[in-house]
């Protein structure tokens, strides 16, 4: 009997990233509906949470960050995830770095930004982030601080897309710009095989891990780095100082229960820096793989069971 040929994959572009949506199971009709629903779900997150689109709901709230706004359940969900991430990482994840990023010139998409116009400014440390997130009255109050949800939105969008697929009885993988999540094994019943990109740009991955459920994310400075007055900077900022963080690291990959949590945890782990990331991973029982500026590859004990190959 011939194997049923179904278009089980959809590739598109959203959130300034390449997107891959892969269905592992389901009939042709189910897969068609699931892929469509997943894409729509991701587009909805982009339209709601983009800081580069002046018409997005987030941009509307950011433009007047003091005072309550009636907002969608989706934006509340995203901000709620960010609050959870902020609290769960004791402040290492902080969407209020938006102001610092904009001062450094990252006030539009990275491809469009003016790399000559930024500056590094010193500022005093900020207190805890505690916006008002009221799902009962559908209200959001950022309490004066505009935010960037770029640190959680891709992972959260992947999670949401998988839920949209599940409505049609389909499981699979959703990858958005290198961050993503899976909702079960692949089409052959085996874990998905996911590579970790070489920060030097070589095509061959530096490692490969297996994943049957949960999310994955990589925080890397490979692409988003530039110079300000002769100083090399990148987009992963320490929220305490507002300056680029993660000294000594080039790339951190984390596996977690969801795409959103992986994305948050990867940033927090990166900001621990080369000197602190091992302890941080141990303390959090984090499945974590990191590459330092000298190319050394290391991983936590919790990562070991998932690794199926590391470049010799």
């Amino acid at each position: 009997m011939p194997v049923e040929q179904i278009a089980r994959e959809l590739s598109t572009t959203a959130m300034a990233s390449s997107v891959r949506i892969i269905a592992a199971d389901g009939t042709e009709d189910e897969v068609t509906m699931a892929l469509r629903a997943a894409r729509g779900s991701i587009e909805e997150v982009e339209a709601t949470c983009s800081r580069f689109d002046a018409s997005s709901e987030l941009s509307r709230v950011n433009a007047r960050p003091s005072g309550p706004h009636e907002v969608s359940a989706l934006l509340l969900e995203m901000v709620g995830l960010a609050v959870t991430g902020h609290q769960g990482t004791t402040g290492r994840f902080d969407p209020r770095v938006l102001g610092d990023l904009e001062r450094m010139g990252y006030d539009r998409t990275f491809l469009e930004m003016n790399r000559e116009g930024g500056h590094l400014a010193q500022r005093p440390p900020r207190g805890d982030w505690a916006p008002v997130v009221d799902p009962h009255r559908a209200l959001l109050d950022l309490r004066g601080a505009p935010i960037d949800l770029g640190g959680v939105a891709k992972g959260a969008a992947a999670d949401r897309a998988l839920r949209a697929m599940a409505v049609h009885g389909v499981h699979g993988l959703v990858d958005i710009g290198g961050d993503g999540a899976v909702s079960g094994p692949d089409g052959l019943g085996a874990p998905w095989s996911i590579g970790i990109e070489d920060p030097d740009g070589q095509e061959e991955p530096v490692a490969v891990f297996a994943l049957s459920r949960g999310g994955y994310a990589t925080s890397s400075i490979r692409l988003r780095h530039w110079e300000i007055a002769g100083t090399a900077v990148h987009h992963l900022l320490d929220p305490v100082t507002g300056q680029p963080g993660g000294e000594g690291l080039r790339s951190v990959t984390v596996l977690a229960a969801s795409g959103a949590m992986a994305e948050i945890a990867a940033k927090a782990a990166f900001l621990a820096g080369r000197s602190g990331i091992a302890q941080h991973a141990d303390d959090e029982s984090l499945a974590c793989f990191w590459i330092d500026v000298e190319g050394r590859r290391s991983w936590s004990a919790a990562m070991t069971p998932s690794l199926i190959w590391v470049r010799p």
Partner: protein
Amino acid sequence: MTRRRAKRSAAMGPALAVAAAAASVTGVAVAWAAQGVGGTAASAPTPTTAAGSDADATKAAQLRAQIHAARAQLAAGSTTTTAPTDGAAPVTVGEPASQPVAYATAPTPTTSAPSTVPTTTVTAPPTTQPAPPPTTVVTGASGAG
């Protein structure tokens, strides 16, 4: 359903999702707390009685009652018990429930001691194959614009 009510209903899902996510982020702490709940079993002495004696049976029943009361107090955080009415020594059971005794059995990190350099490096790769297995996707920065 009004528009506002519909929004409220829709928002409840995310609220639950946030709670679940919080549990994920603080999963370690939650797991350890759960260990604390279940790790303080009281080691009360088992009353011994002489078979066939009504007096001993009564005494044993009293002792069981004392132990029961002691356990109730233990649960409330006290180590002392009400003195028995027959003049016997008070029965003391276990340690205060508030003592963090569960941490003795809590899971410890499986990696090596903290250091200023990565200490969890595993020198032997999971496989010695020179070429990587086929991958479905690659996690990293190249997919982001």
